[in-house]
């Protein structure tokens, strides 16, 4: 779907199903996108669109009820899904790392946060115990945690949400990965902390020439920071474009609607329009285009499989038969 030469991460035709008591949920269907070296790619969509599941599948920490039913995840050309557990683990934390959403729950509640960083350091570097401790303190300082020596021994419940998020980020970058996945890094924090955390992630990515997959439901937040944006809806990738182009000329009706719901400085309240309908039930039989029933441009041809993928202009992909 994209130029793969030189891409760090290539996700191709990735499909994931979840088995639940109420039936099989096709949570992700033939999703494809790439992340280049040192590139920041944003992934945007409503909750339930498959963003987080994609990230978990890339990291190999999919919930046990989930199953990859097709496609590949390639990192520097190696197909991660084909690797054995042991080899696969070699990538985690060292080549790619993830900062999970809801950082407080994602940290071990009964282990001092400093020790948790050291666990990663001891695993992925040649540092000894005391050197690992020094490095952990450095990392704490780098993610702007005040008084690192004191907070090194603190437990997650003693820290604020913003501090937990910073620890989470330090944990993710401890192994100096080439790719950082940040899953909703700012959600649940107050606005000032949100900005600080996002700026910190950007700086770290820039400093270490880290590629980044920035996942958020907030198109505005992602658009400011990402080189390119992947828009997802109900388990489908519906549009991929460079940020500026996406904002200037969205081609998928869903992206256009999403943009219209995103406030910006010169918009008035009347301009903000909600997207009609809701994310469809992924357990049921769905038309080839899962946006079909919410779409005002829908036409009979939209019911014909397969879902198209059109490169409308170089680097701008859209999965729609009647693009804008």
């Amino acid at each position, binding site marked *: 779907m994209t130029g793969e030469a030189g891409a760090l991460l290539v996700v191709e035709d990735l499909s994931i199903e979840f088995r639940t008591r109420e039936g099989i949920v096709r949570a992700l269907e033939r999703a494809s996108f790439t992340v280049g070296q040192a590139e920041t790619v944003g992934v945007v969509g409503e909750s339930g669109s498959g963003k987080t599941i994609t990230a*978990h599948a890339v*990291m*190999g*920490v999919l*919930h*046990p009820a989930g199953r990859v039913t097709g496609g590949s995840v390639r990192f520097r050309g190696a197909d991660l899904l084909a690797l054995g557990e042991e080899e696969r*683990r*070699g*990538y*985690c*934390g*060292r080549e790619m*790392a*993830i900062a*999970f959403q*809801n950082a407080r*729950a*994602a*940290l*071990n*509640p*009964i*282990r001092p946060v400093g020790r948790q960083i050291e*666990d*990663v350091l001891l*695993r*992925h570097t040649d540092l000894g115990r005391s050197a690992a401790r020094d490095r952990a303190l450095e990392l704490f300082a780098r993610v702007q945690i005040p008084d690192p020596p004191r907070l090194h021994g603190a*437990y997650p*419940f*003693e820290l604020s949400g913003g501090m937990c998020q910073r620890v*989470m980020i330090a*944990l993710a970058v401890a*192994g100096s990965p080439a790719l950082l996945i940040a899953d909703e890094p700012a959600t649940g924090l107050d606005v000032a902390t949100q900005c600080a955390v996002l700026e910190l992630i950007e700086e770290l990515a820039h400093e270490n020439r880290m590629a980044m997959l920035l996942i958020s439901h907030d198109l505005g937040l992602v658009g400011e920071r990402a080189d390119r944006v992947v828009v997802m809806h109900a388990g489908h990738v519906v549009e991929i474009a460079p940020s500026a182009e996406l904002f200037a000329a969205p081609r998928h009706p869903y992206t256009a609607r999403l943009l219209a719901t995103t406030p910006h400085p010169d918009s008035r309240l009347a301009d903000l329009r909600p997207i009609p309908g809701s994310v469809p039930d992924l357990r049921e039989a769905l038309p080839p285009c899962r946006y079909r029933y919410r779409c005002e441009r829908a036409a009979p041809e939209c019911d014909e499989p397969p879902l198209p993928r059109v490169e409308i202009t170089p680097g701008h992909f859209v999965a729609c038969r009647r693009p804008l």
Partner: protein
Amino acid sequence: MLRMIGRRLAAALPGVIGVIVVTFLLNRALPGDPAAYFAGPAATPRAIEEIRVKLGLDKSLPEQFGLYVRDLVRGDLGTSLTTGQPVVADLRARLPASLELTLCGLLLAIAVGVPLGIFAATRPGSWADHIARVLMTMGNSMPVFFSALLLVYVFYYLLGWAPAPLGRLDAFTPPPGSVTGSFLVDSLLMRDGTVFLAAAKQLVLPTATLGLAALAPIARITRAAMLGVLASDYVRTARAGGLAPRTVLYVYALRNALLPVVTALGIVFAFLLGVNVVVEKIYAWPGIGSYALEAVMTSDYAPVQGFVLTMAMIYVALNLLIDILYGVIDPRVRIET
């Protein structure tokens, strides 16, 4: 840490008071005239009257309670009609046998149940998981006296591997000098291998019975706790960080899963204290359970009361220990209180 222990001690106090009040009320609920009861069947009316005054039964209920507490503080639990000894002395002599047995059973149950629960939880849906679940369900449904008798039948009568279920030592082995009261520990202290082996042999079946009884709840709770923890966000973080599977399992998952297991240990221990009575009866174990049962046969209430009181105090003390242990494992408890 000391402050936390102090708080826990204070929190255990209402339980202790409750235990004392209940045992007092039970004592007064005895059918018939307690004075005649305590005086024994052969007592003359005058003796009964003396006992009534001695027991303070001629006083009002609150006064009687005061006397009861005073006696407790002095360590006076009355006299056993069966042995003619003060109940406290009897209990002190027999308690080590009960404790040795119960603790061995508990340790066995933990040593088998926790790994079994972990094993089942890390392989959900596998044959090992199914076998573990069947074992847990069966174990929960097994009457202890039934499993004890089956063990005796198979390992004593059929196979002849175990010694006769007749107490802590066979007739030919003299008990070791008493230091702690535990035959295992004392024989080791005396460096007497023969006695140690003889005592251990006698312990095997009763310990296995207790262990089997406590195995199911421990394995069940461990499995449930591990399943919950393994699905937690922080274990996912550890996995995504590429940590070694051993680190993930033991440092991240197990230590968190142990919190509910430790809490459950208190309930399991209480259960074992009850089971202990039955096991002591079957294996003719000279502990405080069989002491109480002997007293029941002769309608001698003071030993029964002493037994209930002792068991309850042991339970209160163990719960205190568990609370403290919980604080050691869980910083949230340690720091916030």
